[in-house]
């Protein structure tokens, strides 16, 4: 019997070690897997490479991980925001490395990793600072930049419902990076509001097929929504 459900967030992240690369879903706080991140902080590991759209908002999620000093490098598109103070301080102190990637290239590079592509040619960033030193090519009269896939050891993702095979449905704009990060990471770990019996997710509406998911952990409806 296939059963990808794990009893606790603690058990779900138990093999993430020092120096791991970890994709974290979420756009701002929507879709941010706060409970998995808290469990990762509790493990005490560090020297992590984090891949997320942002570099933390406020005090929770990726911001908490940065605040705790666990992040060596962050790959993201939009670090600087009104509430990114923990990242800002570490970055200015030279304690965290930043790889800035245009948002669509970030998504395309993650998806390319999940799809087994060796590289992609993207028009985004051509002629800008973010393409300096990179190989370019003109194809059918348009200029493209060669960009490589972004792989990761783990992905931490928040979805709405799962079954024990790891099929996922998401909720509203919390979906964002979840489906492509699940594909790209060697081990995709997903927190959900509930795990439902096999066969009860409508197969026409499954967004992430279970083949891309290794672990699911049920937390109950999120505090924010219950409030």
């Amino acid at each position, binding site marked *: 019997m296939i059963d990808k459900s794990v009893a606790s967030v603690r058990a779900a992240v138990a093999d993430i070690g020092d120096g791991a690369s970890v994709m974290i879903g979420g*756009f*701002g*706080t*929507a*879709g941010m897997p706060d409970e998995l991140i808290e469990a990762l902080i509790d493990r005490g590991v560090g020297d992590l490479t984090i891949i997320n*759209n942002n570099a933390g*908002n406020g005090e929770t999620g990726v911001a908490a991980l940065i605040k705790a000093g666990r992040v060596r490098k962050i790959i993201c*598109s*939009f*670090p*600087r*925001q009104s509430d990114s103070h923990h990242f*800002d301080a570490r*970055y*200015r102190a030279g304690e965290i490395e*930043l790889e*800035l*990637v*245009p*948002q*669509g*290239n*970030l*998504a*395309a590079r*993650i*998806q390319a990793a999940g799809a087994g592509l060796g590289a992609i040619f*993207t*028009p*985004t*960033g*051509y*002629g*800008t*600072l*973010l393409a300096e030193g990179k190989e370019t090519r003109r194809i059918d009269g348009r200029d493209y930049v060669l960009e490589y896939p972004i792989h990761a050891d783990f992905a931490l993702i928040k979805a709405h419902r799962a079954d024990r095979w790891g099929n996922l449905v*998401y*909720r*509203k*704009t*919390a*979906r*964002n*990076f*979840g*489906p*492509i990060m699940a594909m790209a990471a060697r081990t995709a770990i997903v927190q959900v509001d509930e795990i439902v019996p096999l066969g009860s997710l409508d197969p026409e509406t499954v*967004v992430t097929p279970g083949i891309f998911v290794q672990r699911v952990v049920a937390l109950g409806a999120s505090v*924010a*929504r219950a409030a």
Partner: protein
Amino acid sequence: MKRLDRDAMAARVARDIPEGAYVNLGIGLPTRVADFLPVDREVVLQSENGLLGMGPAPAAGDEDPELINAGKQPVTLLAGGAFFHHADSFAMMRGGHIDICVLGAFQVSVHGDLANWHTGAPGAIPAVGGAMDLAIGAKRTFVMMDLLTREGQSKLVEACSYPLTGLACVSRIYTDHAVFDVGPEGASVVEMIDGLTLDALQGLTGVPLRMDA
């Protein structure tokens, strides 16, 4: 001579967005364009974090932290709307499926080069987000900005001095003084506010301008 205020600029941009258009409105000033789209005109707003058919802000108390826009503010979804993941969202831009995007800018060149993500100032932490994808991906990229900086420098320039977002990507600029078309032929004035002359506008911008009949 009365310069257009922000609402008047937004209303002017809205006039150029036709029925049936798929549109992305950038963070900040462009967001205001949504308030001036006539209710009987079906325009589908895309938000890069993963929705089409974005509606206005919800009533107080109805906010959902998992239903937000690219500026991370709570929004609503209209009938016919859809959610999708980030790779699909940016495929909509890069793939040329978005008809119009409206962006803010630090500078735009007369040839349509855009600078809107980074001042290049020492110590500034850069953030790019979806600006580069939007700028080069949409079928038409509009910029909405004040013509002059607070210090009176023209933001319509011969060549951008700030780091570029995209090359030759902007087609039209809406400002508080005038509307310009930009491109391979340089800048032309589409319309000006009452009381302004081409000579005076030329003086403000310091770039060659023409006015097509």
